[in-house]
Structures are given as structure tokens and as C-alpha cells.
């Protein structure tokens, strides 16, 4: 017997007889001898127990005991227990895309609730049922804006995650579009530069709030500038910050995307994550990805279906709004469970805790001689500091002492060798923050 196969020797015999062939090999006759594998050199199978033991050993090669002060758009938040227990239910995890609505109402209603929660969070009118991750969601938003406006030029704020900017660059390299990066001044989008560059050939301006440096902005004025020229505004957001921070909806933004990992998903070494997208109702038909809509059944009972499918690849083929098929439905439901547990007050409190802890850390860091904390603009739970020497080296020493201290910025921005991006979530205790600061102080003093 082989794992997960039910057919017994007798079954195989009976089935082959029913088919009218002698052996299983006869079923593969269409594959001719010269097409057979030149090699299929794979290890022998193992028992479940042995495989689990193997992974226990491998897992220990990851050093996860480090106390993280590292973010960059991906954060270490606490995930309440019901999230995992509910998401592990096979009825949710082992279903497919809800093509048959009558026997998929569980997934469909959960996704409708997810869309509603994302609209509430971002202050927008419509949401899709998820995209892959925050970076690809921003790419999809860019393509959507190019489609809506039929223009060719896109402005990209320098405060947009450099990880996302590189993704968009890769995807558009062979297409006939022009991307112009606009500068960041004192942590904020440079209005003067944008005003000069934005024109009637511009399809969209891409912004991020809080931006990669952790700075909070109110982009309302940029929205006005853009709309005056028929330009769409895309904003990438950090969902937890929206518990307190002005929503893209309140600013008049046209398309919102973001990384939903912080809404109840583990860091997972980069995925699976949750790309989300919300927009204005007037753009719903230009939006990529699956959308769940409310309707009624034959007895006028409320129910939910995949709707507006004519936008999608399985109907429109080469004319589709995107090539996306599988999204991250389970991650979307996972985030819904998280948001439902959190509730209205919980969201605000979670955001406040992040804000307070980051502020405490920032204040303590200001007390270290040689550390410069950027104060020109408000931040949420992440901020930039300038160290007296190469942040990569300091980072390395902090790791030795059990802290993942932040992200040295020179990986992404030239001439920032001494800068580091520090994130403080609600999970960091006062003791951890104080230890972190005193360790950094010690390392800096030792270097002098």
C-alpha cells in the first residue's frame, strides 16, 4: 500500500478488467518510449513520524528566539487562538474556489464579510476577495489605473516600499509605460515635485501611508492635485495603522492596496500573505480578482455568489482585467476571523498600543548620545534612526546579543549607511524595549 491511496490489489484487478486493459502500464501507452524519463532519482518514502522528526531538526536551524524590532511592512503581531483553530477546519481549508454556490456558502459568505471588513477599514466602497500579497496587489492597482485612464505615465512616491517598487519595475519592464519616482522630503511626499510632474498624461500617482520610513501623512492635497488633472491616486496602507490613522477613503484616494499579513497571519518567512484591494464603486468593473456579491435564491433568501466574472480570465481570456485565478481565499477568511475577534474597540486599542510602545522606544533612543531620531513628522509603530556608524555592523552585533534590531536602510536607499528602520509592535514588552535600548547604547559606547 502507498500513502493516501485506497485501491487494493483486488480493486486494481477489477478496475483494469472493467477498462479492458491488462496492466496499469497499458493506460500510459500514449507516452512513447523516447518520451520516458531519463531519470527520476528521488529519495525513498518515509513514515509520517520520520518526516516530522526530520522537520523538527531542520526547524532548529532557524534562529527564531531573536526579539524582533524588525518590520518593513511585515510585522510581529499577536494572533489570538481561535484564528488558528477555525482556519484549520477542513471544510474551509480543503474546499476549492466556490464555483457551485449552493454548496460553498460558507466560503462565499466569509469572503463577503471579508470584503465588507476591508471596506470598513480603508473607508472605501468595494473590495475584491483578495490578491496574492501587498506587492503584487500594488502592481495590479497600477495596471488597473493604466487601464481606466488609458494613459502611459505613472508617478511613484519614493516613500513607497522599495520592495514593492522593484516588483512593479519587473512586471512593467517590457511594457510601454513610463515610471517616475518622486522624492521624499523630511519623511513626507514632496508636494512641489509632484505638482511639477503631474500632468494630463499621468495615469496615476502611487503613495504609501505610513510610508516605508514609518511616516504618517495626509495625502488629501495630493488627491486634489491629481484629480484636477484626471489622475488616479493609489495608496498602499498598513491595516493596523488604520485603527487610528486617517483612511484613504477620507482622503479621497481611488484605489487602495496593502499587505494584510498583520491581520492575523504569521510572518511565514514571506508567505502565504494577503494582498488586498479596495476601490470606488465606479471602478468595480475594472478591478482585478474575484468578487463576491450578495443576491437572493429562488426562495428570496439572501445568499452570495462570485459575481462580475466577465472581468476574469476564465471568461474574457486575453481581454481579462488580470490573469489572476487562485487568490488567497483562506488567508482572507483568516484575517476576517482576526478582525471579528478584534472588534471596533480592539482595533483602536491595538493601534494605540503599537503607537505608545513605539513612542516609548523612540524617547529612550533619543537619550543615547550619537543616536539621532527623526522627529520632523509623525510616525506610527515604525521610525527611522541615524546611528553614529554603519548600521549593518551594529545590527550584526545586536543579533549576537539576541535582538533583531531593525532594517539597515542602505540596502534600499543609497547614502543611508548609518540609518536603521525600527519597528515596535504591541508584543514588545517594556523590559524588552529597555533592554534593546541599553544594548544599543552599550554597543555604540564600546565603538567610540
Amino acid at each position, binding site marked *: 500500500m*502507498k500513502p*493516501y491511496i*485506497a485501491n487494493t490489489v483486488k*480493486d*486494481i484487478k477489477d*478496475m483494469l478488467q472493467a477498462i479492458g486493459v491488462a496492466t*496499469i502500464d497499458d493506460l500510459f501507452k500514449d507516452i512513447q518510449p523516447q518520451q*520516458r*524519463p*531519463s*531519470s*527520476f*532519482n*528521488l529519495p525513498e*518514502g518515509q513514515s509520517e513520524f520520520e518526516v516530522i522528526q526530520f522537520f523538527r531538526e531542520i526547524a532548529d536551524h*532557524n534562529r527564531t528566539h531573536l526579539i524582533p524590532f524588525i518590520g518593513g511592512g*511585515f510585522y510581529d503581531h499577536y494572533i489570538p487562538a*481561535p484564528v488558528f483553530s*477555525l482556519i484549520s477546519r*477542513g471544510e474551509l*481549508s480543503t*474546499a*476549492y474556489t466556490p464555483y457551485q454556490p*449552493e*454548496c460553498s456558502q460558507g466560503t462565499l459568505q466569509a469572503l*463577503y*464579510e471579508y470584503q465588507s471588513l476591508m471596506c470598513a477599514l480603508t473607508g472605501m466602497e468595494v473590495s475584491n476577495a483578495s490578491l496574492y*500579497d501587498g506587492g503584487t496587489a500594488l502592481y495590479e492597482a497600477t495596471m488597473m489605473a493604466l487601464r481606466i485612464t488609458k494613459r502611459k505615465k505613472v508617478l511613484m512616491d519614493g516613500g513607497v516600499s522599495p*520592495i*514593492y517598487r522593484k516588483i512593479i519595475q*519587473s512586471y512593467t519592464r517590457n511594457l510601454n509605460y513610463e515610471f517616475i519616482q518622486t522624492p521624499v522630503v523630511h519623511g513626507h511626499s514632496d508636494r512641489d515635485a509632484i505638482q511639477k510632474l503631474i500632468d494630463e498624461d499621468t495615469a496615476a500617482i502611487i503613495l504609501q501611508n505610513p510610508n516605508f520610513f514609518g511616516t504618517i501623512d495626509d495625502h488629501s492635497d495630493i488627491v486634489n492635485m491629481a484629480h484636477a488633472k484626471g489622475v488616479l491616486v493609489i495608496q498602499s496602507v498598513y491595516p493596523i495603522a*488604520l485603527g*487610528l490613522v*486617517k483612511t484613504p477613503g*477620507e482622503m479621497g484616494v481611488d484605489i487602495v492596496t496593502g*499587505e494584510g499579513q498583520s491581520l492575523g497571519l504569521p*510572518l*511565514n518567512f*514571506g*508567505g*502565504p500573505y494577503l494582498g488586498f484591494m479596495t476601490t*470606488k464603486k465606479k471602478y468595480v468593473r475594472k478591478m482585478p480578482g474575484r*468578487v463576491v*456579491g*450578495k*443576491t437572493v435564491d*429562488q426562495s428570496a433568501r439572501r445568499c452570495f455568489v462570485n459575481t*462580475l466574472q466577465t472581468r476574469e*480570465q476564465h471568461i474574457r481570456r486575453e481581454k*481579462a482585467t488580470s*490573469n489572476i485565478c*487562485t487568490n488567497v*481565499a483562506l*488567508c482572507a*477568511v483568516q484575517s476576517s476571523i482576526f478582525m471579528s*475577534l*478584534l472588534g*471596533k474597540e480592539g482595533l483602536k486599542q491595538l493601534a494605540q498600543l503599537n503607537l505608545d510602545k513605539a513612542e516609548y522606544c523612540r524617547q529612550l533612543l533619543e537619550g543615547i548620545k550619537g543616536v539621532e531620531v527623526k522627529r520632523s513628522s509623525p510616525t506610527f509603530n515604525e521610525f527611522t534612526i541615524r546611528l553614529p556608524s554603519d548600521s549593518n555592523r551594529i*545590527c550584526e552585533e545586536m543579533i549576537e546579543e539576541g535582538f*533583531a534590531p531593525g532594517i539597515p536602510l542602505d540596502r534600499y536607499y543609497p547614502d543611508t549607511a548609518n540609518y536603521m528602520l525600527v519597528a515596535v509592535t504591541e508584543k514588545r514588552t517594556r523590559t524588552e524595549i529597555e533592554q534593546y535600548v541599553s544594548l544599543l547604547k552599550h554597543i555604540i559606547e564600546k565603538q567610540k
Partner: protein
Amino acid sequence: MELIFEKSVAGRRGYLLPKTDVPVSASIPEQFQRKRDCPFPEVTELDVVRHFTRLSHLNYSVDTHFYPLGSCTMKYNPKFTEQVAAMPQFCEVHPILPQLKNGELLTQGALFVLYEMDKLLSEITGMDAFTMQPLAGAHGELTGVMIMAAYHKAQKNKKKYIIVPDAAHGTNPATAAIAGYETISVKSNATGVIDIDQLKQCINDDVAGLMLTCPNTHGIFNMDIDKITKMVHDVDGLMYYDGANLNAILGRCRPGDIGFDIVHVNLHKTFATPHGGGGPGSGPVGVCEKLAPYLPISRICKRDNDTYFLNYDYPQSIGYIASFYGNFGIVLRAYAYILQLGKEGLMAISDHSVLNANYLREQLKKYYHLPYDRICMHECVFSAVEQAQRGVHAIDIAKFLIDHDLHPPTVYFPLTVKEALMIEPTESESKETLDLFVDKMIQADELSRSNPASFHDRPKTTCISRPDEVKAAREINTNYFAEEKPDD
């Protein structure tokens, strides 16, 4: 069923946050503050648990039902792989850690998994190098076509077209289009595979490549594949293998050996990771040696001292296609599955998925029109044209099956077959289950003769009857909170 929002009562809490332990209370300047509170529901933990548990009861799933959805490979998803993915040393690792100076030493376990999967998938498919970055099958297709474009650019080839058979998944033409190519659709011939004569007419120097699912969506392995490969390679076109149907040929044939240059693999199909109600998936892409320089960065490499590192030093790379290294949690599950099954186990998958499909084909062909009457691979496509003449369409048969506790096959796909019923039983199902399915399909056929009208109010056993999809599309409502206010 009530929506979670309709259970909300002001003052209830589902999760209590820790009290603050820092001696500061910060605030955001008013201009930057959110004005209206976010209307998340106010419910208890029990409310949430009961709500989502009850929602889950409204789904058919592999864990609860036979799910022979063609082209989706709804096989059993072993539970132990969930345990592996949930190990904190895997799921709590921050993806930026290995990018810090010497940070790769902190994540050797995770990098090892990615490196090993590259090697294993290369051996399984006969390719030379893989990237784990693509986050789903269609994302893999886009990555593959971008690699094609980069190759042709480097060769200074001026290419315009990608050829796609009419039986292909919609993702193929959609991908080609968003990557900047025009698609040429080639018809299937009477035997259910791409028409060679028509293909010949479409092949010219402007062809960048051909995207093929093999076996194709009719469940047929293309016996002309060697000819097709040669025709495409003769104009320096590239052969793209859509891995949706890889489940049929493990150990029997490798795309790399039969001339494919680029391959994507759907880990959520062939390698048994849960479909999740529509994702997360994972679509690693493999390439032959001459295309390896174009793979996305970063790539996972091994040093002489047996440590693994992120290598960005590929100047011809197409760049970054995802935020990090792919859907690591899914890759991890698939790796565990491959290790458990091993060589013999993987080969058995294809043997039994093909055996099961042929058994169904043989049992049902007396009752349903079989457009391509021949040995099939892991799936077969029937047509309900005869039943449709009696007023019972593929969709009606689907709803009849739902009423008998079976998930229906894929209906109305591929587009090449009218009233298509595309059945993929997978290797996980027992003969008893297949026999039960056959019984119900025969019953449906009988009923289409004796009482065709009885289909039209089906399904009757589910929580809802057929939804009004026209209303859903005309009166778009995708957001509960938009209901309170009229349209803008």
C-alpha cells in the same frame, strides 16, 4: 445565515489586549487621524467561533465530500503537513532576517527547504533550475512568460505572439496578454489535441512560444508533442508547460525530457496542499539551463561550507516578482508530502489517478456522450449534449449531484466541448466512492428521460437554492456597509 455584523452588540469583545506597560501615551496629530471609528463587529469569542464553524458547515470540501472537479486535482491533503507548517521555527521567521548582514545564518532551516525543493522539483520535471517565488499557478505563468520575453530580448529576437490551444485554461491567454504578447488560438482536432496543420500555419519567426497543458484539459496526452516541440524550437520559440495536469505523469514522463523549456507546477494540485477555498496556492517555475540566468531574484544557493544564502548576482534576471521567496508555508507542506511519498509514492499517484479516471470513463460512457473515446490520463471530459436535448443541462446534472452529497465535476470547461462535464477523481478516492458517483450519474441520466423537469428546482438539500446571478451582477453589492447609504 446571519452576517457577523448582524450579531454585533455594542460593548462585546472577542479578544482582550494586554494593558499597556509603557509610561507614555502618544497621539497622532489631529489632521492625520481617522475621523469615523471603524465599524468592526462587537462580538464575543464564542460568537466568532460559532459563526465560522457554522459557516464551514455550509461548504462541501475534500475532507467531507467527493470532489471530482476537473483540472483542479482535489486530492486528499494530509494533515501532518499542517503540523510541519505550524512549527513556530518556520512560521514565525521574518522574511527580511536573511537579508541582514550575515542574516542568512539565522534562517538556514528555511533556506535549506527552498533549496531542496528546487532540486526535487527539477528532478521530478526534468528541468535544470526552479524558483519558488510564484504565488499561484497563474503567477507562475506570468513569471514564465516574462522569462520568455527576457530570453528573446537577450537574443535580440523580435517576437510578438504566443500560441495557445483553444482547450487551454483562460489564464494562458490572459497571461500572454498582460505580459505584452498577442495570443494566437489554435483549434483542437477530432482526437482532442492541438491541430498540427493549423499550428503549422501559425508558426513563424514572430512566435515567442507556445503554452501547452500536457496531458491537456481533455485529459489526453499529446502524441505529437515531439513534432510540436521541434516546430516551435525551429523558430527559436520556447515551449511552456502548464503544470495543471502534472498529477497524471509523475515518473512516467518529464516535461524537460520532451522539450519543454519552462514549466510551472501547482503545488496545491499535484503536491496536495489545501486549496483553501481558492488559495493560497504556489506555482514554482522551472527552466532549462539556457533560461536559468533569467529566473527571478533572489535565488537560493549553497556555499562550499554547506551553508545556504540568497544570491542576487544574476544581471539578466527578470527581477523581483513577489515580496520574498514565495509562499514558503505552502512550499514547506509540499516538501513534507514529497518526502513522505518518495519516488514510489509519487509514481503511485499517477498510476492510481489515471486508473480511477479511466474506470469512471468506462463506466459512464454508455450513458454520457464521450467526445474523445480513448484511454484518458487523470481526467476525462464528457458532454451532456444528449441530456441537454431532453432539457437537462450540465449545470442541472451538477445540481443533482449536489443533492446527492457529491461535489460536481467542472462544468462548461473546456470551452471546446459543449455541455462539458470534466471529471478528475484523483488517486485518493476508493472504488466504492467511484461506484457511488457512477450510480448517481446514471440516475441523473435516467431521470433526464423520465422526469427532466425535476432538475430545475435542484438543489433542494442545501442551505440555499439556485442563486439569482443576474441580480448579483446588475445590483452590485459587495460590501455590507454600503447598504446603509444609497449609491453615489
